[in-house]
């Protein structure tokens, strides 16, 4: 990693720690939402950016995680246990879904996962005895640890942000390991990876299951953050949104989801002046972006940085020859 990007990360982290002290509760809610959704988008980035598979099931995994935590904590189990259970359940469901679904690739997989999301929505809506149906679940408690309560907006933000830091450090470490590098090989050239002796199907499945687990953990924070969940929140819209976050930020870039989630959370607020037309503007922007820069915002920044350094080098070379100004 270059020194510039290391400095940028440190500055961004410092900003993320300082910013809640200057915001009103609604602003803190928004950045907490950013931290929570970034976890889910990071999981999707594993599936999409590294293993190269389009999944429209991430919103459903967020839903499964959110419902697990809501039901377990309301039944009196401690949050930590519910958190782990949500992640474990989503890992297992991801594995079970991925096993048949990953027989097919790309667009087929997109639609199979889309079907899964719709099925999860139907179950959440119809099984009233468990999920309270369309009425949703109210008053989800926020956890407290060893006497530190996260009930206030600021402390819940720090709790979410801390979880994000821990999970992204874990993901970073995983992607650096020989094991994680296999994920990249899968995306770049699956057939070559196969011929090098990688069990590609197993690695793709693993990437998908871990991505699903991160979706579930994100849901585990989502439920206590919004404190009211209903099936509609986890329908196709959320999966689309998470997919767009990864793409807009830059899929395959580690920090792509961080940027994409920030755009997706803040843009509706900035575009409030356009009133009801927010989604039209957003969809239009995404289409333009796909046409001109499919590698997302970070891809664009990378391209600009490369052009600038090339121009700089050229200028230096010119002045060294004594022709320049």
């Amino acid at each position, binding site marked *: 990693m270059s020194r510039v990007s290391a400095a940028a990360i440190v500055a961004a982290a410092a900003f993320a720690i300082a910013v809640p002290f200057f915001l009103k509760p609604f602003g803190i809610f928004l950045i907490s939402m950013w931290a929570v959704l970034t976890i889910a988008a990071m999981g999707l980035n594993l599936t999409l950016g590294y293993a190269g598979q*389009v999944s429209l099931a991430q919103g459903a995994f967020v839903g499964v995680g959110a419902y697990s935590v809501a039901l377990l904590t309301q039944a009196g189990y401690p949050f930590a246990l519910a958190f782990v259970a949500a992640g474990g359940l989503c890992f297992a469901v991801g594995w079970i879904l991925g096993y*048949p*679904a990953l*027989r*097919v690739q*790309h*667009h*087929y997989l*997109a*639609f*199979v996962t*889309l*079907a*899964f999301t*719709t*099925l999860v929505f*139907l179950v959440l809506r*119809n099984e009233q005895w468990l999920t309270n149906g369309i009425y949703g679940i109210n008053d989800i408690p926020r956890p407290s640890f060893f006497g530190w309560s996260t009930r206030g907006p600021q402390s819940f933000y720090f709790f979410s942000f801390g979880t994000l830091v821990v999970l992204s450090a874990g993901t970073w470490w995983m992607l650096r390991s020989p094991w994680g590098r296999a994920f990249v090989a899968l995306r770049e*050239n699956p*057939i*070559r990876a196969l011929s090098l002796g990688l069990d590609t199907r197993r690695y793709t499945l693993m990437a998908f299951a871990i991505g699903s687990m991160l979706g579930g953990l994100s849901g585990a924070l989502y439920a206590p953050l919004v404190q009211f969940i209903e099936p509609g929140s986890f329908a*196709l819209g959320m999966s*689309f949104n998470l*997919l*767009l976050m990864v*793409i807009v930020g830059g899929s395959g870039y580690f920090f792509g989801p961080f940027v994409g989630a920030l755009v997706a959370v803040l843009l509706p607020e900035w575009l409030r002046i356009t009133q*009801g*037309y927010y*989604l*039209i503007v*957003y*969809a*239009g922007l*995404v*289409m333009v972006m*796909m*046409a*001109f820069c*499919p590698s997302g915002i970070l891809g664009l920044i990378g391209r600009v940085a490369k052009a600038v350094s090339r121009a700089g080098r050229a200028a230096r070379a010119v002045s060294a020859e004594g022709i320049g100004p």
Partner: protein
Amino acid sequence: MASFIQLLVSGLATGAIYALVAVGFTLLWQTSQTINFAQGEFVMLPAFFILAAMNAGAPFWVAALIGIALALAILGLLFKVAVVDPMLRHGVLPLVISTIALSLLLKESVKDFYSSQAQPFPALVPPTDVQFLGAVISTQSLAVLAVAVITIVMLHLLLNKTRLGRAMQATAQNPTLALILGIPVGRMVLYTFLINAALVAIASILVSPIYLAKFTNGETLGMAAFIAAIIGGFNQVRGAIIGGVLLGVLDNLSAAYLSSQYRGAFPLLILIAVILLRPQGLLGRFEERTV
């Protein structure tokens, strides 16, 4: 028995509409590797063109022609030139994302600029019922079936019996070779986009009297079209037709006899079963992978 026949006929009518949409879907895939996630919204939109024309005072038949013409221009030509062409060099994924965004754009535009309420839409034939073996069958279902069958027969004749159709098939199967043989490949691809636009416009006219014209109509229709295409085999026009009809009938029967709460789930379960057991579809061929 009587209710079974009723369900069967209305299922066939719905299935015929799914088939029209699914055929367009597979045609686009075959000739230009375009997976159109906005296909459902493409069916939703022409109904609003027609309603807008009728609001401006045009009688239904004139409005329908205006609607089809607008569909050809916007959903055919403009879609290809402005959305698909700039994206093709980036590969399949950006185009998938872009059509997802397009579906959102179309849906929200109709909601904001026309109406978020379901709009009544004129039927092709006056709504009466006919008796058949004790079953009551609406003339509307029969009219839908008739129009769909005529459309598909005409498409079949165009694709298989004319020089133009064979040139289009050659383009789909091997664009390089087609080019060498002197077929204007670019124009052939444009024709498939226009055919898709015509198919969705016809489907829109058929489906809107049944479901009313609403901005969210595309969600179920797009999904149904894709499931139909997968069930039948993604690379076969015949497959899409059979898949669509099968889906419409199964959907209707399962909603009546099994569970209406989980109505939306049965097509998805069929989809998962087909993908598991026969990923190439019922009639499909395996597509070879290249390194």
